[in-house]
C-alpha cells in the first residue's frame, strides 16, 4: 500500500466518512483507517445478488453472551457485561469511569461511552434519530444572559460558550447531510427554520405511537415525524433501493439490508463505486491507529497496527481524527505521551489551563414508560421512533421553567419489541445492568412468567427526552494506567451532572410522564396504574452516556479557551483536524449524529481550500 496520501482520516463513522466522501470527490487521495471490520450488507459487493450480510436479524448480535470484567481493582471486577458484536471487549479496550464528585469511590469499567468499532462506526448501531439542533443550541451563552435559573448554585453558566458559528452557517450542511445520508421525516412542526426540505416521506407510524402523539398534542406540543436515517424511497445519491425497513431490528443492530443510512452504505460505498472518485479513496479496516507523530506544527506520520497486529506508518498532508470523542481524546493524549516535548507541548498536554479532554459532554436524558392497559400492538413493525416535539426547547417554555436550555422529546417504538430484549432490558437502568432485573425476579416463572408476558409484550410505550448538559470543567477524559490490548493506556471518563441538570431532567421527565398519561386518557385507555409506569432520568447516575459522546476538544475563536479553532483544526498544529463530536462546546438538545455529519461536511469544504 502506498504510504503517502493527501488526507488520512482516522475513523469511518459520522465524523470521518463525510470528509472522505467530499475530498475523494475533489480529487484528493484519501485514506480512511478504521479500527473495526468492514461488515457487508446483503449483496453489497461483487459476489452477486445472493451475497449474505455480515449483520443479522439476531438478538444475540445486539447484546450477546455474557463476558466477565477481569480488569483488577475496579468496583465491578468479576461482574458480567453484554456487548454487541461490534463493540470492543471491555477487557481488550476498557473505558474506566470515575465520579469527580466522589473521588473516594472505586472506578468501574463501563460499556457506556462506546459507539461501535466497525466501518460506519456508531451509525451502524444507532437508532438513526437524525435531528438538527435548534438555533438557540448554537448560542446558549448569549441566550442566557440576564436570565434567572432554578437550582443554580451560581456557577451554572460559567463554562457555557456560544458556538463560534451559528445555525445559519450550519444550515447548508444540514441540508447536504440530510440529502446525502438519506433521512425520512417531516419538517413541519419542528422548532427550526428549514430552507430546503430533503426528507424522504416517512412510512406509516406504528399505531402504538399514536398514543404518544395524542399526549403531545394534548399538552399543546407541536409534533413532527421523527427524522430517521432510514430510507423509505429509492435514494439516488447512494444508489440504494427502498424496501421494508420496519422490522424491529433497528436500534443497536446493523441493518443487513442497508436501509438504515449508516455511513458505509450512504457515503463510503457509493464513493468507492464511483468511477471518478473511487480511485481516490482507500479504506483500510482492521487498522488501529496507535499514535500520531509531528514535526513541528505538522503531523506527518500516523502509526497504526494492521490486521495482523504489525506496526505500519502512513503520512498525509492533512490528518483528520474522528474516532468518537473518548477515543479521539485518548489518541491525542497517547500521541502527547509519545512525544511530550513536541506533540505534547503543541497540544498543551498537562499544562495548567489546558482544555484537552475538558468539558466532556453527553446529554441530560431520561423519560417515561408505561404498559398500556388493555392495548397490545405489534411493536416489531417499527423503526426506532415515530413522533417528536421541540415544544420543550423554545424560549417561552424555558423561561416558564427556569431552565438554561431544553431539548427534544420523542417516543420510542422498537424498544423491547423482541422477546430476548424484552427480558434483557427489563428493569435494567443501562447497558451495564442488562439482564439484572429479569434474572433476580425469581418469583416470575411458569404462570407468573406468562402473566408478565401478558402484561408487557407489545404493550409498553416509552417517551424520551434528550437535552443539553451543563459543561463542567471537572467533566473530562484522561488516560488511565490500565493497558488496552495494544499495551496503551486506557480512556478514563470522569464525569458527573451539574445540579441544574437535575432540574432540567426533572422537568423534562415530568413532561414525558404527562405525555403518556394524557395520551392514554385521550386514546380511551383507562386505569394506567402507577406501578405500570416508570419515569425519571439519569440524574445521579454519572456513568450514563447514551452513547452520545461529545465535547472534550471544544472549538472556539480563543486559543486559550478552546482546543480547536472554528475550522476544527487543533490549535498549535497546521494540519490536524478533529471532526467527531468532541468539537462541541455544548451538547445540543437532540441526538448529535446529524450535527456531527453536517460539521464534517463543513470542515471538508475548508479542507478543499486548504490542501
Amino acid at each position, binding site marked *: 500500500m502506498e504510504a503517502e496520501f493527501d488526507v488520512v482520516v482516522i475513523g469511518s463513522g459520522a465524523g470521518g466518512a463525510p470528509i472522505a466522501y467530499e475530498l475523494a470527490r475533489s480529487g484528493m487521495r484519501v485514506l480512511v483507517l478504521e479500527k473495526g471490520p468492514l461488515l457487508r450488507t446483503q449483496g453489497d459487493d461483487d459476489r452477486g445478488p445472493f451475497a449474505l450480510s455480515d449483520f443479522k436479524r439476531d438478538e444475540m448480535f445486539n447484546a450477546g453472551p*455474557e463476558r466477565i470484567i477481569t480488569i483488577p481493582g475496579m468496583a465491578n471486577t468479576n461482574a458480567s457485561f453484554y456487548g454487541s458484536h461490534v463493540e470492543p471487549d471491555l477487557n481488550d479496550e476498557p473505558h474506566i469511569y470515575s465520579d469527580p464528585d466522589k473521588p473516594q469511590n472505586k472506578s468501574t469499567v463501563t460499556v457506556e461511552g462506546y459507539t461501535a468499532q466497525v466501518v460506519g462506526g456508531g451509525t451502524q448501531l444507532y437508532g438513526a434519530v437524525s435531528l438538527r439542533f435548534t438555533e438557540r443550541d448554537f448560542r446558549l451563552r448569549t441566550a442566557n444572559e440576564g436570565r434567572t435559573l432554578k437550582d443554580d448554585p451560581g456557577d451554572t453558566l460559567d463554562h457555557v460558550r456560544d458556538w463560534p458559528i451559528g445555525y445559519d452557517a450550519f444550515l447548508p450542511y444540514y441540508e447536504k447531510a440530510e440529502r446525502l445520508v438519506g433521512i425520512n421525516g417531516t419538517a413541519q412542526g419542528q422548532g427550526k427554520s428549514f430552507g430546503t426540505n430533503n426528507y424522504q416521506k416517512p412510512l406509516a407510524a406504528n399505531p402504538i405511537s399514536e398514543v404518544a402523539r395524542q399526549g403531545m398534542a394534548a399538552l399543546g406540543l407541536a409534533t413532527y415525524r421523527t427524522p430517521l436515517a432510514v430510507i423509505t424511497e429509492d435514494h439516488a445519491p447512494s444508489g440504494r433501493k427502498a424496501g421494508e425497513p420496519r422490522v424491529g431490528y433497528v436500534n443497536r443492530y446493523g441493518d443487513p439490508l442497508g436501509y438504515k443510512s449508516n455511513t458505509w452504505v450512504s457515503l463510503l460505498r457509493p464513493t468507492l463505486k464511483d468511477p471518478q472518485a473511487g480511485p481516490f479513496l482507500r479504506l483500510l479496516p482492521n487498522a488501529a491507529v496507535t499514535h500520531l507523530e509531528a514535526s513541528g506544527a505538522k503531523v506527518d506520520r500516523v502509526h497504526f497496527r494492521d490486521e495482523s497486529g504489525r506496526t505500519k506508518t502512513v503520512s498525509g498532508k492533512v490528518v483528520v481524527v474522528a474516532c468518537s470523542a473518548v477515543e479521539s481524546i485518548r489518541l491525542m493524549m497517547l500521541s502527547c505521551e509519545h512525544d511530550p516535548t513536541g506533540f505534547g507541548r503543541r497540544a498543551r498536554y498537562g499544562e495548567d489551563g489546558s482544555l484537552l479532554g475538558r468539558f466532556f459532554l453527553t446529554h441530560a436524558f431520561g423519560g417515561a414508560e408505561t404498559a398500556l392497559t388493555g392495548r397490545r400492538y405489534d411493536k416489531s413493525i417499527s423503526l426506532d421512533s415515530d413522533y417528536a416535539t421541540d415544544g420543550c426547547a423554545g424560549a417561552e417554555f424555558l423561561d416558564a421553567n427556569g431552565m438554561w436550555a431544553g431539548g427534544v422529546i420523542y417516543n420510542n417504538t422498537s424498544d423491547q419489541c423482541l422477546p430476548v430484549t424484552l427480558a434483557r432490558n427489563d428493569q435494567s437502568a443501562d447497558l451495564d445492568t442488562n439482564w439484572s432485573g429479569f434474572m433476580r425476579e425469581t418469583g416470575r416463572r411458569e404462570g407468573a412468567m406468562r402473566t408478565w408476558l401478558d402484561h408487557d409484550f407489545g404493550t409498553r410505550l416509552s417517551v424520551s427526552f434528550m437535552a443539553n448538559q451543563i459543561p463542567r470543567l471537572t467533566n473530562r477524559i484522561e488516560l488511565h494506567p490500565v493497558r488496552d490490548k495494544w499495551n496503551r493506556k486506557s480512556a478514563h471518563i470522569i464525569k458527573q451532572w451539574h445540579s441544574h441538570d437535575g432540574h432540567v431532567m426533572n422537568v423534562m421527565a415530568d413532561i414525558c410522564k404527562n405525555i403518556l398519561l394524557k395520551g392514554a386518557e385521550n386514546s380511551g385507555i383507562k386505569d394506567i396504574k402507577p406501578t405500570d409506569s416508570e419515569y425519571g432520568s439519569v440524574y445521579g447516575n454519572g456513568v450514563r452516556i447514551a452513547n452520545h459522546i461529545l465535547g472534550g476538544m471544544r472549538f472556539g475563536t480563543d486559543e486559550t479557551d478552546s482546543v480547536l479553532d472554528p475550522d476544527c483544526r487543533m490549535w498549535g498544529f497546521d494540519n490536524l483536524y478533529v471532526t467527531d463530536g468532541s468539537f462541541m462546546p455544548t451538547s445540543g438538545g437532540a441526538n448529535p449524529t446529524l450535527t456531527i455529519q453536517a460539521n464534517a461536511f463543513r470542515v471538508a469544504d475548508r479542507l478543499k481550500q486548504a490542501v
Partner: protein
Amino acid sequence: MRARLVDKSDEYVLNHCARFLARDNREPRHSYFGLEAEHERARISDAWRFPVVDAHEPSSREEFESGAYMDFNDVTFVLKEANDGPRFGAVALVTTAGALNRPIEMKRVGDTLYHAVTLMVGRGQRHRYRFLIDGSPVLDPVNPQLFQHSDGSVWSSFFTWEYQETVVLERWEFTLLDRLVRQILPFEDEQARIFLERGAATAQIPNLHRLDVSVGAANYIDKILAREERHHLPGYRTCLDMIAQVLRRRFPGIAVERIPSDASRSPGDQRPAVGYNKLYEDMSAGTPWSALVADGWDLNRYDNPTYFVNLLRRHAWTGAFCHPKYGGNFGAMTWAYLADSYRVTDPALPPTTAFDWQRTIERPYGQSTEYLG
C-alpha cells in the same frame, strides 16, 4: 468424503478474526474465573468464535432457488502465526468434515500472518479437526472445544447450527437441566403444551423426545456451555450434581425426570410447593438456604444457589426465544407461540397477530422475501 471448499475473500476472513486475534497484551484477561489461564485462548477475546460458523452463501441462482443452501454452514478455520515467531511453511487442515486422509490446504490470507480455509458443512453436525503445520499435527490453539476420540487421541472440534446432540453435558445432566428449565419458562399450561407439541411435529424436528416443553432451551444451554459461556460449565456441573443429590434425598428411588411437581404456579399461589417447585424456591431463597443445606447442598462446593437460579433464568429465556440457529427455539416454535397467543388489541384495528415475526426472518424459519439470513 471430499470436503467442498468455499471461496471466501481475504476481506471476509480478516473481518471475522482480526479484532479478536491481533494484539500485544499477553495478560490472560479472557480467562474468566481463571479457567485455562495458561492457554493461548485466555489471551484473546471471544475464542469461542473459532472456527467461524456462518450461514452458507448461495453461489448461484440455482443453489439459491433450490433452497439447498439453507441446509449448510460455511465454516472458516483460521490459524495465526505469532508476530515475533517463525513463519509457517505448509499449513493444512484434517477434519471429519472432509476426509481424515485428505489434508486440506490452508492458504495464507494476503500478506498477513493468518492462514485460512472455508468448508461447506451440513447444519446440525459436529466434527473434529486438527491443523498440520509443516506436516505436524496441532490442536487449534484458540478454539476451546476439544474432543477425545475413543482411541484416546484429542482433537479440536466444532458443531454447526442447530446441532441437537449434547456436547458437554452428560445425559443425566441434560435430563435434569431440561426439567429445571421447565420450572422457569411459561409453557407448562395445557394450551401451551398442545401448541408447542403440534409446532414441533410440524417442524419435523428429530429427537423430539428431547424437547418436551423446554423448547430446546436445555439444548441451547449445552451449546453455550461448550462455546460462548464455557466459563459457567464447572458451575453447572457442580450445581446439577448437588441438585441431583438433594432430589435423591427428597425422593429416594425415583429417577429425576419422574419426580413430581405441582401444577403450574401462578402469581399469589398460596399452596405449598412440592418437587421441582420446592427445589426452585429453596434455591431462590437466599442465604442461608437452610432447606437446601438440610438436604445435602454443600455451600463449600457452590456458595450461592440463588446465583445459579439467576443464571439459569437468563439461559433458559435466551434459549427459548433466541434465533433457532443457536440450538434452542426449535423450529422457531416459541416465536410462533407468541404470534399465536398475542393479538393486536385496539378498537380501531383488526385483531391480527401482535408478533408477525415471519415477515422479518429468513427462510426456512420465517418468510422474509428480502432478507436471506
